[in-house]
């Protein structure tokens, strides 16, 4: 039996294991890459100069190995409104409920008020500036969660860069494949954050079927935190896994210590799918904020971005004051298997060992 862990993705990237870490922490990214996996660093929130500094920092630590970066390129943006106009749209009933929650749980004021004045509109300008850094630095892999404009694909390919697209439906996958992306990430409902409605086991084989004609590798995403998950999606035809929650509590992760402890405590049922944070449904670990907005007496959740404006003080205060009882983080349903604060290198090696155990069990092992 050939090595089932040496997939098309490994060939395409020159990596040992078909495991991609999606992380917002560059220390995690470097640790995973140097341990034989691959990492994509989420840079959507950062200004261009910050992104350029991160690229330099990573390159100094991984040498010639490849790495990736993820930006949130918008595909649609609302008509601009000023922050004052938006604030005026928040009903008093909702403000009162937010104040009740803060009083009930003794939520302190944030040390620094959330900068809501950077919100709303003109995402394209920021995205263009971020993209320019990617091109200038020739980042080997550019991942985009909401589609890739044609000029981006053309320019990236002309510079020898790969473009990856994340999808939540087969229709989105077909569009991205036709556009010419180099890898598809098929994300299931089990995933953290804002996800589609199709489960990982259902979407992955459908996307694999669509991608095989053009020989494009597919990564499975959503709920992947154990070697049994990796083995299962390889059996579905995936060329690897895209993992996020797996690394949140790793030793290198810059997630607050209290939040790491919360993640280790969380069961799958605690990774709740709710619209109470941003107005759009997203999966996060549960918190008092979620519990209060579930109650029948809670006012209706507001439209975006008003609900996020309402939640901003609570979120910022929970982080500023490291209140473990208040904090939450986007996490997928695989959080059940995140049970120890290990170095990222060990997280990866444990995942691989678990996967090999599956293949040994199914195939009888090479030594028999």
């Amino acid at each position: 039996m050939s090595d089932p862990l040496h997939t098309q993705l490994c060939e395409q990237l020159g990596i040992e294991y078909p495991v991609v870490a999606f992380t917002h922490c560059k220390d995690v990214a470097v640790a995973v890459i140097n341990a034989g996996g691959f990492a994509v660093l989420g840079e959507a929130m950062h200004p261009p100069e910050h992104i350029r500094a991160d690229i330099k920092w990573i390159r100094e630590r991984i040498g010639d190995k490849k790495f990736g970066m993820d930006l949130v390129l918008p595909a649609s943006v609302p008509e601009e409104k000023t922050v004052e106009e938006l604030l005026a749209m928040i009903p008093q009933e909702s403000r009162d409920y937010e104040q009740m929650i803060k009083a009930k749980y003794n939520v302190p004021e944030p040390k620094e008020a959330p900068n809501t004045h950077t919100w709303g509109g003109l995402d394209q300008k920021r995205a263009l500036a971020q993209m320019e850094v990617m091109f200038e630095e020739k980042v080997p892999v550019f991942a985009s969660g909401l589609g890739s404009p044609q000029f981006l694909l053309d320019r990236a390919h002309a510079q020898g860069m790969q473009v990856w697209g994340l999808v939540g439906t087969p229709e989105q996958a077909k569009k991205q494949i036709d556009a010419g992306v180099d890898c598809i990430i098929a994300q299931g409902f089990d995933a953290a954050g804002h996800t589609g409605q199709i489960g990982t086991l259902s979407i992955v084989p459908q996307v694999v079927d669509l991608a095989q004609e053009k020989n494009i590798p597919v990564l499975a995403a959503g709920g992947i935190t154990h070697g049994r998950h990796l083995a299962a999606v390889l059996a579905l035809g995936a060329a690897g896994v895209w993992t996020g929650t797996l690394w949140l509590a790793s030793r290198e992760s810059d997630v607050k210590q209290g939040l790491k402890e919360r993640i280790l405590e969380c069961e799958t049922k605690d990774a709740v799918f709710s619209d109470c944070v941003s107005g759009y449904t997203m999966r996060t670990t549960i918190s008092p904020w979620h519990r209060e907005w579930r109650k029948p007496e809670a006012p209706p959740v507001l439209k975006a971005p008003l609900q996020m404006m309402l939640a901003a003080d609570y979120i910022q205060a929970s982080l500023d004051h490291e209140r473990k009882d208040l904090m939450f983080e986007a996490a997928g349903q695989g959080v059940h298997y995140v049970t120890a604060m290990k170095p990222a290198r060990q997280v990866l090696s444990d995942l691989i060992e678990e996967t090999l155990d599956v293949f040994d069990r199914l195939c009888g092992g090479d030594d028999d």
Partner: protein
Amino acid sequence: MDDSSDNDQPPYVTGFNGDYEGRRAACEGGAGVEGTKYAGRQYFVGTLTGHYRDFGDYPWRWYLLAQLTVKPEAYANEAVWCEEGSIQLLDENE
């Protein structure tokens, strides 16, 4: 047809494409969620006004979709700017 605004120097060039005016279209869009590092997909159906904005030198073109008949429940506005590649004309064969 293009008319750059010099007053407050917006980061785009505006224009109008008469071929798109009044066309029904779907937009498989999405954007980052304000205040978070996350993004979500959003689906719209409406009528193109023909107005566009070009960002950058490529250009990166965006059309205004108004009179929305389908939009995410959480979407607060009545119109949306859609990236050209995210638009599908619905009346192409009519």
